[in-house]
């Protein structure tokens, strides 16, 4: 028996076993996330309530306020109860004024009880209601912008800008959109993922990327709105909800109408050595915000294949996608919001490398039929031979078009040499446009023969994924990560950056944002954007 319409002859029992095992592996992590919080989750609550700005040293007020509460009452009951109690009883006009006094050591925080606690909770809920009204309005604004312009057909062409200077990024992004980009990603400054705060304001200095700040988000979204109207096509904006400030960046993305966010369940652990618990807790809250804001997440499975071998480790990509799907759905994301990632990274020296890529890409397509899959171009085997690289990128584009990938990150022939020249981007778009025009209908004429190489390979990768999920389910996901299952790197649960910002919730923990996000009646159904 095979899945209906499957070109790969997939066994539906195998597919449902894989999902079942992903749930078994992921559920203990969800339970841990539900009983813990982090400094970044608490800061995100304040950001959702509209607290912005920073002290003279550039440290955001959300950090100063959370730190002040942590040093006095502790955070185990959440930042909201002591903060809004101080706001109400101290007669402060707003959170910023409170944060300023708190930073100066002039606020005595306490855990209020009885009527005082009820008053603090009511004030906090009212503030968050206003905050979520902003996010809901942004989501509605996206839908009306799409109505006013148009939604580009899939695959969406995804291009990166990364100058370090938001005022240089803007004209480059607009030029890329005019040349055909449907999605613009602004790469972050390298190192931002390990900052335990979100910088403020418009920034002009960054290394290999531009800082993610609320103001940079706002400036770029406004510029892309202009170009969307000019082109009659809605150009989406992407940034990174990853690193130590994942939930806060998600909150800012919702407030400034970003459209897609990189947001992987394990990337920070494996590639940035961020503590696994910190990552999973932050990830859940950030995904709840993305769900509410109508943001599509992009997961980072492509990265595993840059350290591990793309043939040997193909099943780890599937395992990670299934885990990302489970965690995403649990956090409230609809299928259309799950931009699961994968990549074209098999060595061109391997015989039948392209056929293997087709098998992998088709497998992902069939396992997640409603997900806007994000397909990443070759990086590992781009050698500096730009002519060879251009050819490899064309084969990547062909695999993407043939297997119906939803979002194509456009490969640059100068990958690994320099940040792309204007002409590199132009040639890359010419490449993808040619392939889409020439081979757009090849997919419907592509049916691998039963029992042939493609089917066998896809079935083998799925079987290997099921086997690995079974092992993870019995060992525990945190142990599997510690053992180097993903991307070869070993990451123990009690090590890594940001662990000191993780704490267990006390009895009576209060998080007014989580109340909105956990209750489906309040959060609303996932809607098609």
């Amino acid at each position, binding site marked *: 028996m095979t899945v209906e319409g499957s070109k790969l002859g997939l066994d539906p029992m195998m597919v449902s076993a894989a999902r079942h095992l992903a749930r078994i592996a992921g559920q203990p992590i969800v339970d841990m996330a539900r009983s813990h919080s982090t400094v970044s989750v608490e800061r995100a609550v304040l950001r959702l309530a509209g607290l912005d700005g920073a002290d003279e040293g550039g440290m955001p007020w959300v950090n100063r306020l959370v730190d002040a509460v942590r040093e006095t009452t502790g955070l185990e009951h959440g930042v909201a109860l002591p903060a809004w109690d101080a706001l109400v009883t101290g007669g402060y006009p707003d959170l910023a004024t409170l944060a300023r006094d708190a930073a100066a050591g002039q606020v005595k925080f306490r855990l209020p009880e009885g009527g005082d606690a009820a008053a603090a909770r009511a004030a906090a809920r009212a503030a968050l209601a206003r905050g979520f009204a902003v996010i809901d309005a942004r989501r509605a604004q996206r839908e009306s912008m799409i109505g006013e312009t148009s939604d580009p057909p899939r695959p969406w062409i995804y291009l990166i800008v990364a100058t370090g200077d938001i005022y240089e990024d803007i004209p480059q992004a607009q030029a890329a959109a005019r040349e055909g980009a449907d999605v613009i990603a602004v790469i972050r400054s390298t190192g931002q993922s390990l900052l335990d705060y979100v910088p403020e304001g418009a920034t002009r200095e960054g290394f290999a990327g531009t800082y993610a700040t609320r103001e940079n988000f706002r400036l770029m979204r406004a510029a892309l709105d202009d170009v969307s109207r000019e082109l009659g096509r809605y150009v989406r904006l992407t940034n990174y909800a990853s690193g130590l400030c994942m939930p806060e960046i998600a909150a800012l993305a919702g407030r400034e109408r970003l459209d897609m966010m990189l947001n992987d369940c394990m990337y920070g652990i494996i*590639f*940035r050595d961020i503590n696994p618990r910190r990552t999973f807790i932050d990830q859940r809250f950030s995904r709840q915000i993305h769900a509410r804001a109508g943001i599509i997440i992009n997961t980072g499975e492509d990265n595993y294949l840059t350290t591990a071998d793309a043939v040997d480790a193909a099943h780890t990509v599937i395992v990670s996608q299934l885990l990302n799907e489970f965690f995403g759905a649990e956090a409230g994301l609809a299928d259309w919001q799950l931009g699961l990632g994968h990549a074209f990274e098999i060595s061109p020296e391997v015989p039948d490398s392209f056929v293997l890529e087709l098998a992998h890409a088709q497998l992902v397509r069939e396992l997640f039929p409603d997900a806007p899959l994000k397909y990443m171009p070759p990086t590992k085997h781009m050698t500096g031979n730009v002519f060879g690289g251009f050819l490899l990128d064309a084969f990547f584009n062909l695999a993407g078009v043939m297997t119906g990938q939803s979002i194509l990150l456009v490969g640059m022939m100068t990958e690994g040499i320099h940040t792309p020249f204007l002409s590199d981007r132009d040639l890359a778009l010419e490449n993808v446009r040619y392939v889409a025009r020439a081979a757009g209908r090849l997919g419907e004429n592509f049916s691998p023969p039963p029992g042939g190489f493609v089917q066998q390979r896809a079935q083998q990768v799925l079987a290997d994924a099921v086997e690995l999920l079974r092992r993870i389910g019995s060992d525990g996901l945190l142990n599997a990560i510690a053992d180097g299952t993903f991307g070869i790197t070993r990451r123990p649960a009690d090590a890594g950056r940001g662990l000191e910002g993780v704490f267990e919730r006390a009895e009576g923990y209060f998080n007014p944002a989580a109340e909105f996000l956990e209750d489906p009646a309040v959060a609303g159904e996932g809607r098609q954007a």
Partner: protein
Amino acid sequence: MSGPVIRPYGDTTGDGRVQLSFTLPVPFGTERERAVAEGAALQLAAKMGLEPAMVVHAKGMGPAFTFFIVYGRASHLVDLSEVTVAEREFPVLPAAEINLRIRSGLGREMVVLGACIGTDAHTVGIDAILNVKGHAGEKGLEYYREMRVVNLGAQVDVTDLASRARAEHADAVLVSQVVTQRDAHLAGARALAGAFGAGTSGGERGGRPLLVVGGPRFDPTMAADLGVDKIFGRGTTPREVASYLVHALIPEPATAGAGA
């Protein structure tokens, strides 16, 4: 002394033909704009020594830029006797030989610490050298039985790296620097040297570990300028690095028959 003098080769000896592509910030819309753009491209080619040159492809990119592909005859000559290269001062050894040299010469494991420093999060270089998986068909340093490799990963602060190196009694510290914007790789290498107090004692290492830096945009001849012991450029393989470490840290074995 003058060595052989050569020119680029297109399809005939001495034809000097080369290809070049570039972008000029000029529009490519009206007939007049196109003529100006191509003339500008030819002027640049001539000033670069390509004479005659031919614009074989020109394409407007947006309202203000034009991309060109140009072929031309290079008027310059290359004198091979004037070419200078950093000769490799050590032999590349097989893995078994490397292990043997460590065992007999050091009498203990060689401790190698690796990291990406500062804000650089691109571990692809250091991972290619250190991970068992390796690079270019060669296994990484973790594969060498006689080496103990500690890969600290990305964004390691140089002062933390120095104290960790002391704690681990590291023989060598390997740092890869991929990010080159605003010469971050050069600043990073200097910061590394500074953290270990290197580069101030005229090449003497004293008690500090061997400092090795690598990355695609480094000039391998700049080690002394940056205050480190060795720089590896693009395309370096793990076995080259391992061979260098053995060369630099372990005295050459006495020649056969002379005893140890």
